[in-house]
Every structure is written in C-alpha cells, then in structure tokens.
C-alpha cells in the first residue's frame, strides 16, 4: 500500500538523520572509555593486613592531625576554613568518614604517594608540591604502618551515611550545589588559585553530563577529561553511587514525576488516535 511505502521512506530518512547526529556523532566526539575501575588496579594492592589499634597510634604520631580533623575521635581541624583555604588552597578533609567512602587500596596508595593516587602529577612537582605531604613512615615497615592507619580509619568510620553526607565529604570541599543550598567551605579566591579555575557548581551536572559519563568521570576524571585539575577522589562503588544519586535528586528532582506522567500522556494520545482513526474511517466511507 502506497501510504505505508511513503511512511517507510519518511521513517527511514528520519532514523538515518537521527542516528547520524546523535549516537554516531557523539561516539565520534566523545570516544568510549573503559568502565570505572573500583579496584584502582593501577595503584597496586598493599599486601599487609592492618591493625586498627596500632593504626590509632601511628595516625597520631604520623602528623595527620596537623592538617586533618577527626571529629569522631574528638580531634578538631587545626585551622578554620579561611585559614586552611589560605594555607592549602582548599580545606583539608575531616577524616571521620574516609574509611567508609574511600576504597581501602586507594587510601593506602594516597597516604604513600598522594599525587599518584589523585592523578594530579601533571599539576604538582618538587617545585610546586602538593599540599598533602607523602607519608614517609614512623620508623617501622611503611606498608604495615599504612595498612594500620587505613584499618584505624575504617574502624572508626560510621557504618552508613546518607547520599547527601557522602557528597558533603567527597565533593563539597571544592564544589557548590546551590540548588540544594549547600556551598563549599573553601574560600573562592584561594580555591580558584589552587585549581586554576573555579570548580563548577554541580546542581545541574546530572543533566549536563549524564549518569554514564559521571560513572567513569568521578572514578577517574583524566579518562574523560585529560589534563583536568580535578583529582581522582577514590570513592568506592557504593559511595560513588550515593554521590550520583544525590546529584540526580538535586538536578533532576522531577524525574519520577516525568517517568510516571509519560505513560499517561502516551496512553491518552493512543486513545485519541484510536478514536480519530475510527472517526476517519466512518467519514471516508462516504466518499471512497
């Protein structure tokens, strides 16, 4: 039948254009990257098993508290946000939840070689050292000491956090989320000087970047955006999912409503179409 042939031609060319300007063009502009690696294989694994008790001693004598607060153990941050921004460029994290949200291997590698774990070696050097000083050990086996510190952080961390709390500890030192009225504590001028550019507000990032992109990007920013000054933060899979969930809750708050309403709108139009068709058949029967 002629109408169907014509419809097939129209659908074919429409689909061809759609394929060309959407999936095909995007695959050319944003080449596919390997999926997120939550084992952080490039960092290797620390062979030692940590002891939390020993870790507590090591943590205190290693100088961590010179910069970091540990509020679960009643150790406040040594500086207020303004002073810390001025000294470091960004407010150092309180480590209370580090054991829950960051990967164990990643934390160990970070303590030993911060710029390597963070993947910011292109930004920092001996002449411009990273504000987090590498841990050189307190006299014993360094790998054992690091494993102990990580075990200690894991032992004191809360058992679970809300999505927003994970976001606050993982992202909020640099990023604002103004649609949820939460703002970075770091001074903006210091942050801009430290990062080279002001880290973007994340309110609409879920719509701007999509879930898929964020999954690989947060896991390893260099993979999607080579040269970016955003560090790899080392979130484990669960924590990263919580961050993305939170971003979706803020940036795409009406998603559930949209998904639900879609069925109703389409259903309404299907009924309309059916009735219109029956009416059309009735009307045209007289003239054909």
């Amino acid at each position: 039948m002629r109408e169907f042939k014509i419809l097939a031609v129209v659908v074919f060319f429409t689909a061809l254009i759609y394929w060309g300007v959407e999936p095909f063009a995007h695959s050319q502009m944003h080449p596919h990257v390997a999926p997120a690696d939550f084992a952080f294989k490039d960092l290797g694994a620390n062979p030692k098993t940590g002891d939390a008790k020993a870790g507590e001693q090591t943590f205190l004598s290693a100088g961590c508290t010179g910069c970091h607060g540990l509020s679960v153990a009643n150790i406040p941050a040594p500086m207020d946000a303004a002073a810390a921004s001025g000294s470091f460029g960004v407010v150092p994290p309180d480590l209370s939840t580090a054991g829950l949200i960051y990967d164990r291997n990643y934390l160990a590698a970070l303590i030993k070689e911060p710029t390597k774990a963070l993947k910011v070696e292109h930004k920092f050097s001996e002449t411009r050292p990273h504000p987090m000083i590498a841990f050189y050990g307190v006299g014993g086996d360094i790998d054992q000491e690091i494993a102990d510190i990580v075990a200690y952080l894991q032992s004191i961390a809360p058992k679970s956090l809300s999505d927003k709390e994970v976001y606050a500890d993982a992202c909020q030192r640099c990023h604002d989320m103004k649609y949820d009225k939460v703002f970075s504590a770091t001074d903006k001028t210091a942050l801009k000087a430290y990062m080279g550019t002001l880290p973007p507000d994340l309110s609409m990032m879920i719509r701007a970047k999509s879930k898929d992109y964020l999954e690989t990007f947060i896991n390893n920013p260099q993979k999607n955006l080579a040269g970016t000054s955003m560090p790899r933060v080392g979130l484990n899979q669960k924590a990263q999912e919580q961050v993305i969930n939170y971003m979706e809750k803020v940036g795409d708050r009406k998603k559930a409503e949209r998904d639900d309403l879609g069925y109703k709108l389409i259903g309404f139009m299907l009924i309309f179409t059916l009735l219109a068709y029956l009416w059309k058949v009735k009307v045209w029967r007289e003239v054909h």
Partner: protein
Amino acid sequence: MAEIKKATGVIDWLDQRLAVKVLAKVLMTEYWIPKNINFLWAMGVVLVVLFKILIISGIFLLMYYKPDINLAFDSVNYTIMQEVEYGWLWRHVHGVAASVIFLIIYIHMFTGIYYGSYKKGREMIWLTGMALFGIFSAEAFSGYMLPWGQMSYWAAQVITNLFGGIPLIGPELVIWIRGDFLVADATLTRFFMLHVLLLPLAIILLVAVHFYSLRIPHVNNQEADEFDFDKEAKKYLEGKKKESKVVPFWPVFLSKDFFVVGVALTGFFYLVCYHYNFAMDPINFEPANNMKTPAHIYPEWYFLWSYEVLRGFFFDVAGIAAMDIGLAAFGFANVIFMLLPFLDRDTDNVAPAHKRPLFKYWFWLLVLDMIVLTVYGKLPPTGPNAWVGFFAALAFIVLFVVLPIITKMEAKSGGEK
C-alpha cells in the same frame, strides 16, 4: 445597513452580524481539498498543532523566565524545572516541539518539492512557506539563547559573528545586532524580545498569508491531476461524493488529519518524557561561561546542513579567504530554496518527481546530500571529515546550478504530463 431581525438562536444572532454561516462554508465545509492525497498532506495541520503547542507552552514559560544574564539560567533550570508545578513539562514540551517542528517543516517542504507544489500558480505558497522557514529559524535561534547555557552563549557568539563577514558594514553590523561589543546582557534581552514578540507575530501573520495563498491555486494532489474544482465541488454537493475528486476541509480532510496528529503526538510525548536529549542538548545545562569554550560547538540538528555548507569551504582559493567563500556559500544555501519555483524551468509540469525522468534523480541526490551535510555538520571538521564536508557543500551548490539545465531538458523532451 443590513436588516436585523429577531434572532431564532445564537447561531442566527451571530450570522446576522458576522455572517458566520458563510464564513464556516468558506473556511471549512466548502473549502475543497483533492481526494487523491496521502498522509504527507496532513503535515500542514501537524505544524499548526505543534505551533499552538509552542505558543501555549511558551506562555507558561514566560511567566517565570527572567531575561537577565544573571538570572536566566536559574530561572529556567531551578524555578521552572524544579519549583513550579509541572514547569519541567512545559519546558520539555517547548524544547522538544521546537525540534520536532523542524522535522515536520522539512517533511512538508520536501513533500512540496517532490510533488511539484511550488509552481504553476503555487509560487506564493512556496514563497510564503520559505519565508516562514526563515523566520522559524530566527525564532529557534533566539529561543535557544534564552536559557543562557554554554551552547546558548557560544552559538550566539559564533552565529552573530557571521554577520562580520558582510563586506563594508560587517563589524558595525555585529555590534548593532549584539547591542554590545560582546554577546552580553543587551544581546539576551533583545533576542528575548524577538523570540516572544516580534518573530511570533510575524509567524502568525505569515501563516495567515500562507493559508490564503492556497485558496486560489488550490492544494495539489499526488498525481498532478488537473481538474475543475468548481465542477467537482458541485458533484460533491449534489451527493455524488464517491464520484467527486474533492472533499471538504471539514470534516473529511480534517478527520484524516486528526488521526495523523494523534500518531504524531503519541511519538511526541514519548520524546518529551523519555528521549529529549536530541532537542535539549546536555551541554546547555552548564551555565554560560565566556572563559570556557566547549570542546565542540555545533548548532541544533536542523541548522547543521547550512552550517556545514559554511564550514565546508575550509581552504583559500585564488586569494579569496576560506571564510569568505564559506559565507558566500552559506548565503547561497539560505536563499536558494526560496528561488526554487524560478529555477525549475519545466514550469508547466506539476508531476511528482517519480514521473520526471531527470528531476527524480535530482530530488534524491538533494535529500542524500543534505543528510550528509547534516551529519558532517555535527562531526569535528578534521581530517577526512573536512573533505567530505567540502564535497557535500560543493555538491549542494552544483545541484542548484544544474537544476535549471536539467529541468529545461525535461521541458524540451516533453516529459510525461
């Protein structure tokens, strides 16, 4: 003055004052449309429906939108998308309809080309239609700027810059259009005015003229069958409905259109709720930042073919800068469709393309070339892509240069009539 009597009812009361019965006949029940048509003839009504959807959704958006570079992004993405009840729906509907309406415009336009509905008395339909296409393009471009996202800003930057290539007055013209030396608040405010007032007004007026221009030459049909509309209409009114070659606009023609509109809107609402990224580019959910150029700048899909004609000429020829050649080609691409009725020299033949020995090849080559231009208009113009773009842009121009020649040949050989 007419003799006014006591009315027998509301219709009669109105009829005595406004002649509504005659009006209904002229516009609806005795406005004759050929019977021998297919669903492509429903695209005009689909366009009217989509345009109404755009106006209604636009009015709702207008209640909350703020045309100020410091407020625009948040008024769209926070106030409308999150705070206002169903604000997201109006925005998605508006954004998706703006994109879909161009698809239907292109189908409508290529239907006109295929069935030769732009000539032999139908030139004014074509000319007003192409004028509508031009104003719709300006409407789409100005609307795209309003959310003040990254692509809003950078597209505005690139497109307004194009006017700088016009000889003599170029640089001053760019400043005049922008209202500032840069794309800035003044630019946003004036494009807002264009988008919500001047251009829609022009569109509504032109749509009326477009409809009116159909009245005298009548709608074409799919076999280029020429007949006396008055005679066929008489047959229909005498009750010989099956024998008559025409049907009235209401209810017969519209009953079919309602069905096509239903199918179109079913797909439309699927796109609105589940598949909208093609129309609402994710990049535009990042706020405009004049310090951060996006990695890829491209216009919306419906402008890609003409954008690629502009970009296609990427090397200097005989001392003429690539940019100037591109601009000239871009200007050519934007006016040449307007001239179609005068380029087709087989003026008497309104047969569909498949009954024209040379034109049928020309038509499908044009469709393919414009698809190639569209796809490559989005891809980064590097390496082989640049050459594909160049040859496709060249082919586009050549196609229109040879059109008068091949149609003249068709006219001479007599063709099929």
